[in-house]
């Protein structure tokens, strides 16, 4: 098995004039202190890199100031809107395929959503978004890496 399908996740309030569900994936994060945390990331093709807040970095046991410095810019081009960040390699454990992937993650100094960006993760998967059915299909490109049965039951909307 080298692919899995995820239902989209409701993250927006019901009052917005758009569909409240977005592409997402739940993973386990394994930090240097061997602590494992389960989190949901929004799958964001517009994000250059995976993004998370500094506090998560610290919960996982990284020393935030020791990371590779980066400055993040959003859609606002004003310099004062840029955010300091630190880059670390973080292991994402994917229960649906029983694999681990090391992904570069930018931890922003402040708050941010958990966004799964293109760098790293998107190199490993062919990802298909189906908004008509609110599903995302992830196909692993390196089939040899996935040799185990999935650890979670497949999405009920497959």
């Amino acid at each position, binding site marked *: 098995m080298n692919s899995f399908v995820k*239902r989209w*996740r*409701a*993250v*927006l*309030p*019901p*009052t*917005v*004039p*758009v569909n*409240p569900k977005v592409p*997402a994936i*739940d993973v*386990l994060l394994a930090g240097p202190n061997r*602590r*494992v*945390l*389960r*989190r*949901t990331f929004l799958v*964001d093709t*517009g*994000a*250059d*890199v995976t993004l998370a*807040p*500094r*506090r*998560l970095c610290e*919960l996982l046991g990284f020393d935030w100031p020791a990371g590779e410095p980066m400055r993040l810019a959003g*859609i606002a081009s004003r310099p004062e809107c840029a955010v300091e960040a630190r*880059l670390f*390699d973080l292991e994402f*454990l*994917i*229960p649906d395929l*029983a*694999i*681990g*992937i*090391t*992904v*570069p993650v930018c931890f922003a100094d*402040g*708050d941010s*959503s*958990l*966004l799964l960006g293109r*760098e*790293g993760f998107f*190199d*490993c998967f062919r990802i298909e978004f189906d908004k008509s059915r609110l599903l995302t299909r992830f196909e*692993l490109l390196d089939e040899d*890496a*996935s*040799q*185990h049965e999935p*650890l*979670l039951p497949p999405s009920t909307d497959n």
Partner: protein
Amino acid sequence: MITRQVKIRPWVPSPDQQMLLRETEATMQWLWDLPDALRNQYAGQWVAAQDCRIVASAPTMAELCDRLANPADPTIIMERFEKGVAVR
């Protein structure tokens, strides 16, 4: 920026990791389909959930962690619910 060598490896979960997956599965699914009323109530907030209930909420993850006795408890799942339509 960096395109780093991506490392992929088979993962055999430890007994603790298997237990964590089992213990958090129901709460994870509950959060993914959180009822409209709760999504409205927590719009723009981070929430901490455990055993299919919200145990704390705050505007930022840092503030949420400050409100929890043990924010590193792996059976607690933290999620952010967006306030409105976002363009990133």
